[in-house]
């Protein structure tokens, strides 16, 4: 059974419904102690500093570290993805969980005149070979964000997207962690496919 981490993130309801549409009955937990095993979903909408503070307050930082160490599948979404990295430029610099090496940096509108920030709307993702991206060609997914992941190691980028003068990592992953900058819960059939793949994945 899939478990969704509730730390006050705005898209928790949408994420839960997306799994329900796949016939799942996700467990939603508000503290690490409630976890009873199985894959974890780390959602998120909001700012890095307040998100990270809430993650720590609920003990989810330790839970996610333990999951990464034990090979438990974890799906990060949007802010949930960004917090897996070592740090974010947002809010004057925020330390993340450091489970994936690298940082989150802001789009620079000066790099692409006319590009609007936040990056909002449907954009295409060029996927690498990974079980969670199986069956997905160069599909469009729904994005809403102003910061993007810059993983330190190229192999941690599992999907790339072009925007605002950048080719950025829109999917990152390492070991049993996989995370998307876009919102699979709001990305139609392609998003549903990704979530269904995650449910089948054993984290290897």
């Amino acid at each position, binding site marked *: 059974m899939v478990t969704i981490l509730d730390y006050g993130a705005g898209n928790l309801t*949408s994420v839960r419904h997306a799994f329900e549409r796949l016939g799942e009955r996700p467990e939603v937990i508000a503290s690490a102690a409630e976890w009873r095993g199985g894959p974890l979903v780390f959602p998120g909408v909001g700012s890095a500093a307040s998100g990270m503070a809430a993650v720590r307050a609920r003990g989810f930082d330790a839970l996610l570290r333990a999951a990464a160490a034990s090979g438990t599948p974890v799906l990060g979404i949007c802010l949930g993805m960004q917090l897996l990295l070592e740090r974010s430029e947002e809010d004057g610099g925020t330390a993340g969980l450091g489970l994936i090496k690298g940082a989150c940096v802001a789009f620079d509108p000066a790099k692409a005149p006319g590009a609007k920030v936040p*990056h909002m*709307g449907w954009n295409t993702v060029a996927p690498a070979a990974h079980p969670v991206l199986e069956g997905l060609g160069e599909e469009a997914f729904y994005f809403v964000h102003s910061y993007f992941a810059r993983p330190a190691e190229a192999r941690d980028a599992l999907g790339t997207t072009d925007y605002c003068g950048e080719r950025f990592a829109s999917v990152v992953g390492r070991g049993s962690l996989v995370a998307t900058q876009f*919102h699979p819960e709001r990305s*139609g059939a392609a998003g549903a496919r990704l979530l269904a793949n995650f449910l089948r994945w054993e984290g290897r």
Partner: protein
Amino acid sequence: MLLKRLVVCLDVRNGRVTKGVRFEANADVGDPVALAARYCREGADEVVFYDITASAEGRPCDLEMVARAARELSVPFTVGGGIRGPEDMRAALLAGADKVSLNSLAVASPEILEAGARAFGRQCVVLGMDVKKVPPSAAIPSGYEVVTHGGRRPAGLDAVAWAREAARRGAGEICLNAIDTDGVREGYDLEITRRVSEAVPVPVVASGGAGEPRHLAEALTLGRADAALVASMVHTMGYSCQDIKRALREQGIPVRLSP
């Protein structure tokens, strides 16, 4: 590449879709959520539910409907109508809406845009603006004035200046509806669409006047809009979202084809 969006608008009156719709054989035809789900399956990128009786009745938008939409739709959706302040915005977002559209309230109390952006993030805050062509003047240099109450009440604001101010205050997107072309089906007002799109650093949704796919293509190219909103084209005129998307793709406009 960032794709251009097709947005379908549903006007809701007392929980039902008001305008005639083309799926007469479907028993669910008047149910906004069932209809929206159908448009999503056909390729709509986004849905707007506009509760047109909420304001007059002094109540917030129908939260039960919002919650149902959140369960059934797998694309983002906006709700508008009847929002009285930050608490109504919070309720709509907690019920599962992705964005809230503010129109008359933003004109009357522009600080709601800052409050909304601060509390929920600017990506949740859509400024809906209705504009009407007027002779250019010192107060309205663009020749387009903001109007409220279905076009009956001039707000005394210049459309371009208001769009700029709203984006500066916290609107993360602007849905621009041209009253003169709305419902006429002869195309969007490309001039004001282009002027607002060029004036603001946030996405602009063109609204009012779509009658055929060519009109959307014009709004997304000549009008520089990021998204185009349709209502009667898909409700009554027999176009499917997929037809429109294919026509846009044939015009070289990047759109999402697989729903």
